[in-house]
């Protein structure tokens, strides 16, 4: 799986209340959640995000609440994948479970700034800065998680494997 897109840059400890504030959790449709993604912290996000864009963030991305609404809001907004220094554990599971690829690379996180263009090869973990041509290697995704992402999420993975 290969991705190419424009970077939205975030800092450390982006919590799920920042991604989707609690007051918007009275609805669980992905499309509507996406309309309120980063509503308070980055009001420009929903207006300007284009399909294929990539979030690059610092450490502990997605900390706080277990709300899968956060991962779904990001995915439904058009973001193709997230690169972060590290992820909070529930968000990490949620992202794979809904079929949204994520990679961990502190190096890439330190190097990229807002608006940079980046290409990513998920299988090899190679992240390239398309202007400087610099390359970074992310932590490899465990095979088991890779299977889930390739299937398009946990539900499709389970159905394809005939596990239910």
């Amino acid at each position, binding site marked *: 799986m290969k991705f190419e897109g424009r970077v939205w840059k975030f800092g450390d400890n982006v919590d799920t209340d920042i991604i989707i504030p609690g007051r918007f959790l009275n609805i669980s449709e992905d499309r509507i959640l996406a309309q309120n993604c980063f509503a308070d912290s980055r009001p420009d996000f929903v207006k300007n995000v284009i399909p294929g864009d990539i979030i690059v963030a610092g*450490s502990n991305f997605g900390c*706080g*609440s277990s709300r899968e609404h956060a991962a779904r809001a990001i995915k439904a907004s058009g973001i193709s994948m997230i690169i972060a220094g590290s992820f909070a554990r529930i968000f990490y599971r949620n992202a794979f479970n809904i079929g949204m690829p994520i990679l961990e690379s502190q190096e890439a996180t330190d190097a990229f700034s807002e608006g940079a263009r980046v290409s990513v090869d998920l299988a090899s973990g190679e992240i390239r800065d398309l202007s400087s041509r610099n390359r970074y290697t992310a932590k490899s995704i465990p095979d088991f998680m890779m299977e889930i992402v390739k299937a398009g999420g946990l539900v499709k993975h389970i159905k394809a494997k005939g596990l239910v």
Partner: protein
Amino acid sequence: MATAMTITEKILASHAAKEQVSPGELIEVSVDLALANDITAPMAIRVFEELGVKRVFDPEKIALVPDHFVPNKDIPSAEQARIMMEFAHRQNIKHYFELGESGIEHVILPEKGLVLSGDLVIGADSHTCTYGALGAFSAGVGSTDLGVIMATGRIWLRVPATIKLIYQGQLRPWVGGKDLILFTLGQLGVEGAVYKTLEFSGEVITELSMEQRLTMANMAVEAGAKNGIFDADDTTRTYVEERSSRKGSYLSSDPDASFERVINIDTSEVEPQVALPYSPDNVHSISQVDPIALDQVFIGSCTNGRIEDLRVASEILKGRSVAHGTRLIVIPGSPLVYKEAILEGIAMTLLDAGAVIGPPCCGPCPGGHMGILAHGEKALSTTNRNFIGRMGHPKSAVFLASPAVAAASAILGRIGSPEDL
């Protein structure tokens, strides 16, 4: 001879039908209780239906608890609650609770004896880690994981490494479980225990009531931990046996189990603690915190909405009044806590002091309703998170502290300790 294991490893091994497990290993485990609430259940139900499964794996091992936006705060919330209620009826879910018997999930499940020592509990709520207080393994997940568990009764987990915290020394006046966990978060930081287990131990812990242990385990996730846990002891046994006829396995870590890190904490040095905006690890001793004027004080939540919390607050508020210009909102965590508060005279003390008492639910903690903050408002709260906009306007601010500090601050109209009264 069997390899030494931590209590977390023992519970995970037994639920994976293995002799032993070690940190880093991916295992598949059976789930004793799966939990969701009115926010996370509708999404989990959608996942369950996408799987094409007709019946849940076991209608007696699922708990569905309306607590976040109930009593329904608006039409969309009402629709969400109805989706959960209808699913519960359709699937004969035994532990679905309607208003009147329902309260905050992490308050009512231990109270009703639904979680025992040695159990493996997975919930679509990050504070599911609360049940570690009972010597259970419990962790939060998202709705997709929960939907799959409702269909299969199973989940994959990575065995976490354990950080052992040893608390020794005396407890200063007005210092309790909330202060100990806030102090610990200040030491560890919000990513200090990501993917790991926090194991609470030491002579101070042995003396703590179950309610204080529930408060501490509740906030393990604030350090990024997968679970927080306590060895089962006599306090656990008494608490569990009074509430359940099911038999628990009272487990503890082997003395020679391997811990990734051991941290010693001298509690004699710990004052009442306050977490300043906008992170639960931004923790300071109360003597170091400015006497900031407060618009609101909130006592409640899955962290501090139990009867012992209300008893402490009432002891301080008795014969005193909430400061002019400050609102005090108290929300008992369950109908049982509410009833006890009435029987013990606590409710009257709180009302006489000028508090308003809300119906058992999460209240303003997750920014839903019953105490949302306006632009620029400051609140001191016994809850677990003070992220930007957590309880309302993104320009509001939340300070986290114990029920004792909350009660004192409500009287003073500013952040302060019971010692200041």
